């Protein structure tokens, strides 16, 4: 099993076909093909709700996710509405300090416990509590989200998948915020205007939907990936402890190495020729395979290795171009804080048990994070 089942395809035709719900999706595997598709929205459209990921989400949500599932000029205007909120980690030093404190306290607790399961015992609560701060809602809301599991749509029995609680929850939060407006995300969206009119309920639900669905399993997989890697490479933790200037490039390198989102889809409004000479029929989809692009040997030397001070490191784990990840500043802040606190408080990480998470598709199986990762932490002596 591999984190990069795309090597052969990438070096061969550059395209890997996968079938989801009976429909073909042509995955682009090379860096420049992926970047080109990300830029060319007229050929590769994001107006494809609810199919922005390779498996249709028709069964698990009723709303168009915004701003991700639309093209310019709508995308430009929708995105501008929420950009300031997601840029807070970059612009607000108090917010940054708040997240650093949260992460550090959680790492301190982890060292105190000594043994812990990382995925559900650490990464999931950390992601939820950090999101509560980004959205300016009380921690008690994070307790609700933690119950939803690692993936907001799929971390439950198949029979219960359709009963996912997200839309009912966010709908209720918008209604409550109307009655009692505050400084939180839901109250803020209630006040926003799109081209001179208030956002509709469906639009607000669309913004909320991707806010909760995106940045959840991805952040969690990256955190568990970092713990597993540092456990298997004790010298890496020591290097980081000795030279803190490595933390910034190391975060980028872990995000490249883990590449926690396998693909994002686009729809071709008209028949389109692909790099391998084949054609996508009108209305069918392609996908941009981020982990494959991030191991393209024409861009990265030793792509399968973690090189802590890799520079340049032009990875596209947060996407590329207009639709790049709105939550990237928040994710980077969480991961930088995590590495800093691990350096401050931990000497060694030992894996007690690990179960890799597998994404099994029609034409590939990819290891992406962990179902379970039990570790023992040895604190600074």
């Amino acid at each position, binding site marked *: 099993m591999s984190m990069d089942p795309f090597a052969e395809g990438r070096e061969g035709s550059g395209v890997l076909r996968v079938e989801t719900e009976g429909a073909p999706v042509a995955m682009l595997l090379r*860096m*420049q093909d992926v*970047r*080109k598709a*990300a*830029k060319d929205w007229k050929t590769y459209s994001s107006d494809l709700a609810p199919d922005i990921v390779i498996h249709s989400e028709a069964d698990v949500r009723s709303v168009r996710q915004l701003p991700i599932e639309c093209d310019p000029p709508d995308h*430009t205007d929708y995105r*501008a509405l929420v950009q300031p909120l997601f840029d807070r980690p*970059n612009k607000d030093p108090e917010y940054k300090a708040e997240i650093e404190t949260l992460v550090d306290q959680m790492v301190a607790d982890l060292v105190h416990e000594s043994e812990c399961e990382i995925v559900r015992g650490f990464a999931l609560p950390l992601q939820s509590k950090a999101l509560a701060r980004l959205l300016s809602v009380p921690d008690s809301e994070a307790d609700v989200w933690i119950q939803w599991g690692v993936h907001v749509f799929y971390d439950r029995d198949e029979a219960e998948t359709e009963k996912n609680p997200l839309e009912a929850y966010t709908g209720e939060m918008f209604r409550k915020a109307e009655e009692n407006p505050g400084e939180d995300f839901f109250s803020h969206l209630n006040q926003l205007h799109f081209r001179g009119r208030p956002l509709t309920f469906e639009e607000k639900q669309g913004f909320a939907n991707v806010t909760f669905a995106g940045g959840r399993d991805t952040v969690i997989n990256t955190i568990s990936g970092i713990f597993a890697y540092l456990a298997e490479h004790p010298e890496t933790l020591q290097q980081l402890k000795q030279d803190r200037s490595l933390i*910034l*490039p190391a*975060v*980028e390198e872990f995000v490249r190495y883990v590449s926690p989102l396998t693909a994002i889809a686009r729809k071709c409004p008209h028949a389109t020729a692909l790099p391998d000479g084949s054609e996508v029929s009108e209305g069918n989809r392609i996908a941009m395979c981020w982990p494959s692009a991030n191991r393209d040997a024409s*861009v990265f030397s030793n792509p399968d290795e973690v090189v802590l001070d*890799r*520079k*340049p*490191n*032009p*990875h*596209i784990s*947060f996407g*590329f*171009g*207009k639709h*790049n990840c709105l939550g*990237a*500043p928040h994710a*980077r802040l969480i991961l930088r804080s995590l590495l800093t606190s691990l350096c401050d408080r931990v000497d060694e990480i030992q894996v007690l048990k690990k179960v890799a998470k597998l994404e099994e598709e029609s034409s590939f199986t990819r290891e992406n994070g962990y179902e379970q990762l039990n570790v023992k932490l040895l604190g600074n002596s």
Partner: protein
Amino acid sequence: MPKVTFITPENETITIENAEGTLMEIATFNDVDGIEGACGGVCSCATCHVRIPAEWQAKVGPASEAEQGIFDFMEEAGPDSRLGCQIEMREELDGLVVHVAGDEE
């Protein structure tokens, strides 16, 4: 020690004396508008996009392969584009003037 001037998209001129480090580091340390350096300077996020006036291009040098790979598919980029994180300030660049691209992503 070298001096560098940033001209922001709003035409604000910010001159930094005794500039050390990369243009991205210098700009973020001095709160120059339009330069974010979100990825910390590894040539990934392209939020430190600057444009180099013709008279400075030879001394500053052309975009690296990693930068060009990004610029090839970035609408806002042109032949005068560089990423600030990839330009280390040095004596030879004393007096350098760059324009902050200030892309709307």
